[in-house]
């Protein structure tokens, strides 16, 4: 894990850029996660003092939202839709396959740091279920075979 000292300048810069924005906490957290890949727990004190909030309040916001994470992700993040439409097209089999192939459960990262696996509830791609995303790309009608070939492609990338 990176030392917060090397990340602090980035965090302070993001805080400074949002100084006058109303309701700025979520945009700040997005800014930090977009840049660093996660929200370092050590950043909470800086965020809290900048916004005049308690550290508990900031931590409460980070932990409330599924999207925010406080540990570094793998090189690629795989999200599998668990919602009803995907279930109707057998996403449960796809989930089991993915966990087995990657050797991890949800909210975990492979030992080689290549992939993190997260559940997601609806990608709005319900017309072509089951759906997954890898980083910012969405894929529809994903069979276990298609999943394997996508993994192979991203593993090299």
């Amino acid at each position: 894990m990176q030392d917060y000292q090397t990340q602090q300048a980035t965090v302070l810069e993001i805080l400074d850029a949002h100084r006058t924005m109303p309701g700025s906490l979520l945009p700040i957290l997005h800014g930090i996660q977009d840049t660093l890949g996660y929200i370092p727990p050590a950043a909470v004190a800086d965020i809290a003092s900048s916004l005049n909030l308690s550290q508990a309040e900031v931590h409460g916001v980070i932990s409330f939202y599924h999207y925010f994470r406080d540990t570094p992700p793998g090189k690629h993040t795989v999200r599998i839709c668990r919602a009803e439409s995907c279930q109707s097209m057998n996403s449960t089999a796809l989930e089991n396959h993915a966990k087995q192939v990657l050797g991890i459960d949800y909210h975990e990262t492979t030992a080689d740091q290549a992939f993190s696996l997260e559940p997601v509830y609806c990608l709005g791609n319900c017309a072509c279920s089951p759906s997954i995303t890898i980083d910012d790309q969405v894929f529809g009608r994903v069979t276990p075979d298609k999943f394997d070939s996508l993994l192979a492609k991203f593993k090299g990338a």
Partner: protein
Amino acid sequence: MTRLFISRDSTALSLGAEQVANAFAQHTADRGQSVQIVRNGSRGLFWLEPLVEVETPNGRIAYGPVQEEDVASLLEAGLLEGKSHPLYLGNIEELPYFKNQNRLTFARVGITDPVSLEDYLVNDGYKGLKNALALQPAEIVKHVTDSGLRGRGGAAFPTGIKWNTVLNATGDQKYIVCNADEGDSGTFSDRMIMEGDPFVLIEGMTIAGIAVGATQGYIYLRVEYPHAKIALNQAIEAAYKNGYLGENIQGSGKTFHLEVRSGAGAYVCGEETSLLESLEGKRGLVRFKPPLPAIVGLFGKPTIVNNVISLASVPIILDKGGEYYKNYGMGRSRGTLPLQLAGNIKHPGLFEAAFGMTLRELLYDYGGGSASGRPIRAVQVGGPLGAYMPESQFDTPLDYEAFAAIGAVLGHGGLVVHDDTTNLADMARYAMEFCVEESCGKCTPCRIGSTRGVEVIDRIVANVDKAKNTELLRDLCDTMLCGSLCAMGGMTPYPVLSALNHFPEDFGLHPAKA
């Protein structure tokens, strides 16, 4: 120059539209053919995506579904002249699935370049705003009231009444908030509007701002929609540059500013008060009502919170008048609803129709039955908090009141189709599990009830004190229904009880004893 249309819609992209567009660019360049590739929205015929349309003297001729490897043979066969090929579909607008729709809100989606203001203007864009700028605020609100438009987000509250409350509220600042946290499984109409015609949403919000005296708008967009965010921001930038947003809009002296804010993966933030908390930078905890957000809303100021489709329906109402819009529909459900066919269905997609069609027509005449070819057993309408409807209810007309009368909800118009391999006790358990995952935690019936609900369903299925636990599940559902602060806990019983009532055999119960 020949124009080709290849979608930039997420679903088209998820099936390879980007690669197809790149292949067309490459192959036509190699052949020295001069083409312009327009990245449009999607017509919503998703089983045909990636769809490629070519502009010809006989209209737009479509081919699909097209994969990268089909491109060479399509060009060889004369796609640029609209000639025949195994993937040839003919004039897209003549296909029954498209032709038989009433496209009011989605009039431009799939047709125009979503981020071209010029394209928007030549296709009747900003006509509603032009009319609105010539009216008094109360007259604008009256058009919306007369149209009979009800919130398309799920609760179906009359939009005109909400606007009137904000118009009459006093405050030094008012806000327009667009709820773009479309989290229901089986729904994608908001996404399609934002990716396929973002200007119509921007125009609707601007009209709302002028109608009630709000100078700032926010679009609260779920983080799962990155392509929508790109399209919205491109369109907002173009609107600012050309005097359709900002100070002194089109020389009217009116001001309206607009910004996109990202959510962070919380389903409950689709509830209007928790959405406001989230926009303020807090955990998305549901607020007690009253006070209504129309009176004490964002940052404590009077606020309109409307769904994407509600706001996107406003420009045509102001363009053609409230009466025009009202002429579509039935009973107290006026206008059109963009229905979304998803799950196990042969022809999934978006179908905009006037209220009043039956579920059966939609599922079989247009949806073509299940994708698996097996019998359709249940359809969940209105998202994860909607009821599972059995075949015996498929003749229900799509109308808010008709659905309410049988304990179902039309909600946001999403239909998730399940064939006979789906176990409804599993789906009931999932509904409770989803509530555990997504409850904001503020009220006990939702927070604790959902956890207990999973356990009780597990006991019923495991055949432990079956009769007693079935009674307990009904009792628990009643408590959640009556005692929850918002629809998250208050409607989770809909899928659970409908599964129990219509499919008791899946719980190991005798039909008569359920």
